């Protein structure tokens, strides 16, 4: 390897943290597609609720939406529907949040970011967990949703 690239790597390794410290660490992480900023700017929180035939106490869902609305100062706007179209809208950035039941091995697990569970439903053979999903990579927004989910159903308490 050339000395030039060595120098480059050294600079990358040591300048980056230095720049971050100068820039203010509390600002990290940011959203690549600006979801958090967009919610605050528009004043609207676009939520998708997945229809589920199984009876479930939606107290946690309502509490999560209320908490996020309060934190962002945005008004929630909810839409109901089947999982697939809602998650596709989330992935495309047309929704900010989707709440519904997910299986432990759901293929959506890697395609959207699932927050800690709010509640459980389903049968013993096929347990489902109610979780809020955010768009992949929107790390600031994901962190906000995760924090709110934990506050509503503290880990360990969650079924």
């Amino acid at each position, binding site marked *: 390897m050339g000395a030039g690239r060595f120098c480059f790597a050294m600079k990358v*390794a040591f300048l980056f943290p230095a720049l971050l410290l100068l820039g203010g660490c509390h600002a990290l992480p940011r*959203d690549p597609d600006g979801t958090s900023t967009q919610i605050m700017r528009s004043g609207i929180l676009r939520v998708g609720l997945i229809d589920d035939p199984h009876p479930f106490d939606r107290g946690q869902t309502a509490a999560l939406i209320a908490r996020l609305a309060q934190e962002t100062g945005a008004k929630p706007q909810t839409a109901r529907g089947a999982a697939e179209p809602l998650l596709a809208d989330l992935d495309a950035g047309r929704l900010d949040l989707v709440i519904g039941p997910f299986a432990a091995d759901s293929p959506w697990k890697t395609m959207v970011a699932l927050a800690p569970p709010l509640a459980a439903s389903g049968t013993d053979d096929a347990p489902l967990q109610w979780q809020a999903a955010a768009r*992949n*990579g929107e*790390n600031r927004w994901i*962190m906000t949703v*995760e924090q709110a989910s934990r506050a509503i159903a503290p880990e360990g308490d969650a079924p």
Partner: protein
Amino acid sequence: MSDVGPPRELDAPMAKAVRLEYWNIFWTLTIILVMGLVLGQSETMKTAWVEDTLGLVPPIMFLIAARAERRGHPSRRYPFGFDRVNGLGFFVAAVALAAVGALLLYNAVTALIAAEHATVGSVRLLDRDIWLGWLMLAAQLYSLVPPLIIGRKELPLAEALNDKLLHTDALMNKANWLTGAAGLAGVAGLGLGWWWADSVAAAVISLDVLNDGIKALRSSTAELIDGAPRALSSTDLSEDAQAVCTRLMEAFPGATVRLRETGRLIRAEVHGARPPAQCRHPRHYWPGDKDRAWRLAQVSFIPPIEDQPPA
């Protein structure tokens, strides 16, 4: 002197290298553990973790080879002893290095093409929600230090022992800490909202790792198929070996001199010449620095064909 086993003067640097490699394995295991705890969903982190794990291959191969070389005695099944275990280990380590480079490059390029936005969430730690990225940065920073120090300590030992396996391990350590640096930039860039940052950094580094791996692969293949001795850090012919070749050709004009390498040792065959009347130690033919004369372990003579009795 027996022509099998490492020369006596290498005992001290060999013992030092063995000790260093045990430490290398220990520190690499701590890195694998620390990185494993904060992997999350990040592809960069997973790739770095795989690389750290593969980084165990060269030190383990070195320890196996060193043990075989020092303890193994020629037997009926292995009449030439175990000098060449080192060469085999060198080949295995070179494959690992090239594979790591190719793997890193593939991951980085596919992540870029798919425009993957890596999710790095938060964890609850000591009653606080902490962005996992901070823990990743800390783990990456930690993973920089041991390979940086060990790699630098390995280089002079690899030269003293003329050990290509140890040299490859030093390259692997360099690859590891460079990846750590790229990972730092990647995770930090991710935090700043640049989803492409880690893939780009990883791609640049992986090209370098792949290049080192292919070079090592070429040298090790040359050694295994009895190619002329190669230099320690490149695929060029070894200058020491070329000097031996010239010296032997001067001493036996008209003869064909063939050199090959068994691990760290050079073996010469002089074809079409009769051995000198006086018995000489192979080291007699070493032209350069006498401290390095141990490298020439054997000079054999194959008399001209007309001297041999008809079949």
